[in-house]
């Protein structure tokens, strides 16, 4: 089952809205209707649409004005103008203003179907490109784990040893230590490297949603299950499934998970068919699972299933010798991104970095360096550029443009979540598709 594309029908005539809605629902699209240009703009502001079928002649705001304003809100949405024969010239004008195409009313059924399929094929290609780009970048993740400390050298050694096997690995470590990078490195250096690497952050999801995400569901399995959904286990078949924040899952999900780990098969929610999968499991947690077992919050049998091999990522405060190297790497990364000259760190600033305890670990260091590069006015990074160590309140530098603000915020959240789209989308309180659209719209690139 493919992802549901969203189509918004904008027409002042109820009969047109209704017939198009019925027609598109039969095609399995997620369809919305709006009776005016104003309603359409409000709906575009609220959520992301893939295609908008927009009537040219409407009372009040006409189609051309609506087109212009919709494109201002979401330049990524494709718009098909609908028009009577008499106004074809205006429709051509609409195309000059960014409409994808126009359809003369009434349509031939295959005409509308073809136009929508063209747009969807284009959108799928864009999405595929983003995913491929992510995949390509994943290849280099191993090199992105930086550390010359003895503790990190041991971690690298372990990765090299465990990567070629099929063993389950439990990665432990505080938040921000880069557990997902370790998981990607294991996958990227394993024989499964050309197969999917699927991530699921278990901690952020409610139990029912986690179950759906892990095992998928059949259409009609529960209220709102209006299409079949593949679970992450199915998606990760022949590849690797990385279960982050495994220490946060409920006992019920622990039992479900244990069953899959033992039997290598499962049923989707509401499905009769047993699905067999060949998935390597990597799990991570920042919790003390042994203590959780004692407190009966975590099943011992699952712990031993997951903890066949364990890799502990040391906190940054225990490998301070890596700080200069990491800082230098982040300077290189962000200088390039911001098109700035690569700065050095003043000895006094480096001293501060070395003395700090880094409760947020490598992620916190990365954020501090990025911020220092944004606000720094000197030829090198000085102590004053490090906001964490300032006594006086820190004043954020905000861009004037709302668009730039949105772009920077998305970049920040993506960075903080290691470009995990699902996590970032959740944090931004938008869906994945909307996030993909915005990444495309703002041409945000992974650093």
């Amino acid at each position, binding site marked *: 089952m493919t992802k549901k594309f969203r189509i918004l029908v904008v027409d002042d005539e109820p009969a047109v809205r209704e017939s198009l809605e019925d027609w598109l629902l*039969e095609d399995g699209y997620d369809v919305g209707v709006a009776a005016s240009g104003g309603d359409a703009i409000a709906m575009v502001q609220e959520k992301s649409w893939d295609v908008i079928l927009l009537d040219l002649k409407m009372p009040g705001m006409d189609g051309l004005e609506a087109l212009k304003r919709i494109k201002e809100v979401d330049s990524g949405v494709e718009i098909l103008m609908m028009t009577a024969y008499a106004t074809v010239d205006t429709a051509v004008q609409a195309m000059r203003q960014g409409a994808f195409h126009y359809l003369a009313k009434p349509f031939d059924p295959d005409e509308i179907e073809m136009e929508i399929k063209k747009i969807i094929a284009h959108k799928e290609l864009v999405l595929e490109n983003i995913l491929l780009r992510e995949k390509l970048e994943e290849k280099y993740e191993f090199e992105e784990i930086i550390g010359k400390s003895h503790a990190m050298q041991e971690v690298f050694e372990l990765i090299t040893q465990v990567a070629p096997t099929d063993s389950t690995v439990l990665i432990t470590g505080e938040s921000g230590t880069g557990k997902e990078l370790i998981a990607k490195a294991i996958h990227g250096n394993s024989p499964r490297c050309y197969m999917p690497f699927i991530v699921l952050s278990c901690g952020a999801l409610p139990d029912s949603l986690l179950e759906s995400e892990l095992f998928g569901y059949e259409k009609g399995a529960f209220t709102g299950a209006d299409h079949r959904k593949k679970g992450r286990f199915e998606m990760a078949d022949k590849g690797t499934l990385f279960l982050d924040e495994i220490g946060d899952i409920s006992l019920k999900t622990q039992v479900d998970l244990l069953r899959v780990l033992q039997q290598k098969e499962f049923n989707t929610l509401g499905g009769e068919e047993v699905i067999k999968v060949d998935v390597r499991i990597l799990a991570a947690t920042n919790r003390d699972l042994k203590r959780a077992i004692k407190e009966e919050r975590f099943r011992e049998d699952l712990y031993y299933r997951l903890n066949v091999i364990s890799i502990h990522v040391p906190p940054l405060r225990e490998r301070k010798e890596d700080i200069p190297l990491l800082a230098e790497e982040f300077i290189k990364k962000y200088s390039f991104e911001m098109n700035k000259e690569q700065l050095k760190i003043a000895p006094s600033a480096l001293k501060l970095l070395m003395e700090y305890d880094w409760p947020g670990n490598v992620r916190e260091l990365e954020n501090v360096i990025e911020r220092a590069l944004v606000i720094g006015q000197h030829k090198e990074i000085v102590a004053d550029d490090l906001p964490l160590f300032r006594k006086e309140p820190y004043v954020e530098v905000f861009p004037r443009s709302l668009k730039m603000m949105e772009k920077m915020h998305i970049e920040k959240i993506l960075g903080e979540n290691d470009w995990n789209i699902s996590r970032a989308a959740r944090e931004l309180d938008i869906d994945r598709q909307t996030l993909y659209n915005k990444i495309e719209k703002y041409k945000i690139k992974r650093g």
Partner: protein
Amino acid sequence: MSRCVTICPIGFVEQDILEHVAQCIERRCSLGCRISLKIEPPRYAYNENRGQYNSKLVLKYLLQCHPCDCFRLIGVTCLDLYVPILKYVFGIAQMNGQCSIISTHRLLPQFYGQPQNLDLFMARLEKTALHELGHCLGLTHCRDRRCVMYSSARIEDTDFKRPDFCPTCFELFHWYLERSLS
């Protein structure tokens, strides 16, 4: 819930056509069928400018004429049908609903200037009936061009597909069916 699908002629429809639809549904879907008395199409559904009948209005009228005492209701008509935004439709169904209508008008080879061909016409009729019944049960269009649930925007689409559900649609069809019957 009864497993009987009612087939209702709207306007004059030859008995052979109605029986063929009934046999196809019985054979392919393991459902019983009965052919009901003919109803006349409502005059208000006719659009003089287009020379066609508004399928939504005909469908609503059919539902009014037939109380919901059967599993599903399929109207069969020789009228040329449309929905306001489209030039024509081969059929129309209430998605996840009770009722659908199929039109034989554009299934006839003669409509396309081709010679009469009863086998071809009957094959088209079977596919259209299964397709609309699938929608009534909740199936959406399939991406497999051979599957009977593939969208028929043109008659060539109907001719290309098979009178069968693909394995996924088959499973879903029967899953919906059992769910509706329980």
